[in-house]
């Protein structure tokens, strides 16, 4: 199978349409299972009481907020390097969902911080760098809206996305590099997790649910973008026939 076949908008559009229901419904199913583990099976935390249950969306959305940025930077690099149309569209489609995930991470973090640390917000390295991530997403979205020509917008946003990627390791390692109010990682690639297995299971299921949700939503958005940007191009004529919406 030749994956490059799907590198043009005309072949990717129907493929995305086929993938959306699979990722969308899987996301819903996994979210139900994850919430059932998180609220039904996982016991009350002996230190934090029930407040810790915010973890099941906080960690998943925080991971996703960083990962989406890296993927956006990857597509931006392809768009800049090879000047391919679909790459710029993918980068464009990722930004709003990335911003949403960052907002959810910050919001749930604030509501978790208040009962456990006694404050909604502190200017510590982890929280500040995550807030900068939100501003980077806003910057990419605003820059695109400010440029009428789509291909020029791809290049300008691509440069901004690539420069901003330096923030991702800063967020990730902030809890090691500085003394932060935010705790260190509970889950690591190189050490045993510092939490109960059932809590970890709920967190991981929710993380996969958020992954699938993001994939489904970004594919939906990239299909809109293809329609908007390829307007008047011959192949799109067949897309808007009855029953394809």
């Amino acid at each position, binding site marked *: 199978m030749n994956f490059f076949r799907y590198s043009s908008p005309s072949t990717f559009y129907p493929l995305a349409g086929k993938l959306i229901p699979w990722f969308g419904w899987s996301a819903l199913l996994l979210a139900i299972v994850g919430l059932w583990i998180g609220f039904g099976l996982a016991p009350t935390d002996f230190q934090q009481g029930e407040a810790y249950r915010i973890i099941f969306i906080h960690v998943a959305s925080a991971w996703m907020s960083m990962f989406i940025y890296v993927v956006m930077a990857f597509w931006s690099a392809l768009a800049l390097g090879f000047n391919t149309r679909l790459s710029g569209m993918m980068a464009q489609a990722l930004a*709003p969902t990335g911003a949403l995930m960052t907002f959810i991470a910050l919001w749930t973090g604030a509501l978790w911080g208040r*009962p456990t640390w006694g404050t909604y917000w502190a200017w510590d390295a982890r929280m500040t760098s995550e807030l900068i991530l939100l501003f980077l997403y806003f910057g990419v979205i605003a820059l695109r809206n400010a440029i009428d020509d789509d291909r020029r917008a791809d290049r300008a946003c691509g440069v901004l996305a690539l420069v901003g990627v330096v923030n991702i390791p800063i967020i990730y390692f902030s809890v090691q590099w500085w003394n932060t109010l935010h705790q260190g990682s509970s889950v690591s690639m190189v050490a045993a997790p510092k939490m109960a297995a059932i809590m970890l299971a709920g967190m991981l299921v929710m993380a996969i649910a958020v992954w699938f949700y993001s994939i489904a939503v970004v594919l939906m958005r990239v299909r809109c973008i293809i329609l908007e940007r390829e307007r008047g191009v011959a192949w799109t004529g067949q897309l808007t026939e009855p029953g394809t919406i």
Partner: protein
Amino acid sequence: MSEFLAMGGYGFYVWGAYGVTALAIMAELIALRARRVNAVEAHAEASRR
């Protein structure tokens, strides 16, 4: 049930976190749906000309 909703006194924080997350996701899905309808309409109009 009310014990579940109270979340051991942390109901405001837990449901505030989950509630706003649910609203944000719904807003994204509704906005996407509207964008899709607009894109398809604009497209149909362009191809009629």
